[in-house]
């Protein structure tokens, strides 16, 4: 069964780029435009992985991961931030609040694959 990855980003362009790379790594993709949409998706069906932007309207990525981790089954998905936020203190905060890995934009296929390998999703 292919694993599912929820791509959460308010930019359609970024979602499209990520989708193309993730599909080439045999993931099945779902998309959400902000944290609230993403949380609704997770409540209906927990994905195996979440690729998560930070700054988004309605609910940002950090708030999403905090809430996700409190949901029933919400500890399971591997959450990988993918954001232009690159301050070490902010990255540390994201990790403390439940993120598993972290990508600093700009990213490419090599980085995404390396990080998913790091998170144990790609072998």
């Amino acid at each position: 069964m292919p694993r599912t990855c929820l791509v959460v980003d308010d930019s359609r362009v970024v979602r499209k780029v990520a989708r193309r790379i993730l599909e080439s790594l045999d993931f099945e993709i779902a998309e959400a435009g902000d944290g609230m949409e993403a949380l609704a998706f997770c409540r209906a069906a927990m994905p195996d992985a979440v690729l998560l932007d930070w700054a988004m309207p309605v609910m940002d990525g950090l708030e999403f991961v905090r809430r996700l981790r409190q949901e029933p089954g919400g500890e399971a998905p591997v959450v990988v931030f993918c954001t232009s936020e690159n301050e070490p203190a902010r990255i540390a905060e994201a990790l403390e609040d439940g993120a598993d890995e972290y990508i600093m934009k700009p990213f490419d296929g090599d980085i995404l694959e390396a990080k998913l390998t790091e998170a144990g999703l790609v072998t």
Partner: protein
Amino acid sequence: MRPEDVETVRVLVHARSGVVIDPGKTYQIETRLAPVARRAGFASLPDLVQAIRLQRDEKLMWAATEALTSGETCFFRDRAPFAQFREEILPELAAKRGERPIRVWSAACAAGQEPYSLAMIIDDERSKLPGARVELFGSDISERALEKAQSGLYTQFEVQRGLPIRLLVRHFEKVDEMWGLKARIRQMVRWRRINLLADLRGLGQFDVIFCRNVISGFDEPTRRRVLDQLARALPSDGRLVLGFDETVSGLTETLAPVPGRRGVYAPTAARIAA
């Protein structure tokens, strides 16, 4: 580039470093030599090659050799060898050596990702290995690569290939647009310019030698020579770690694979007798 220019460059690089350049990769040769020509003030590549041929300028010849032998690498490349170092090689040696230093050499380390990966492992494991002393050495043929390695500065792209985010947060700090290793890690590695073709007997013994994805660039006689020299630098319980695609078989009697440990080699009785 004309074929005779490519040949001049191939002969030069082989004589200096043992590295065999594929003459079919003209494009790659040109891409790598272009900055050398530019920095030295030549208008074109043929001018650079002509100067190498006629003037035999040492600085120029080394600059060309460095440019054509430098390799791409990343932190924790291939992961498995580093996991083995962390989980088996390092604790076993720590138990045996007690307070005598464990000497680890990352040979041909390019811009330093390999020795720094080992340094981060040693730093992380320190509390589990009380009393252990590790001396870490990084070497490369290229002065430019060593300068970069010593600076401990990497681009955002470089720190995202192979380096887990928690290690980035723990061991690096942001330096403008770059990421710099903290002094604690940087100071663990001692650097030295070493050409593996040279006589290595003066370097002393190393308990662990990482020499990965290096010998595959050499011709067969050079591989034999380098492997024999590395074997001589190992104590009887020392370990040589090669790249996944590299082997000692058919090249030397002085090293044998460690069963079940891909890429890890130990000196044989033949080496110990010699």
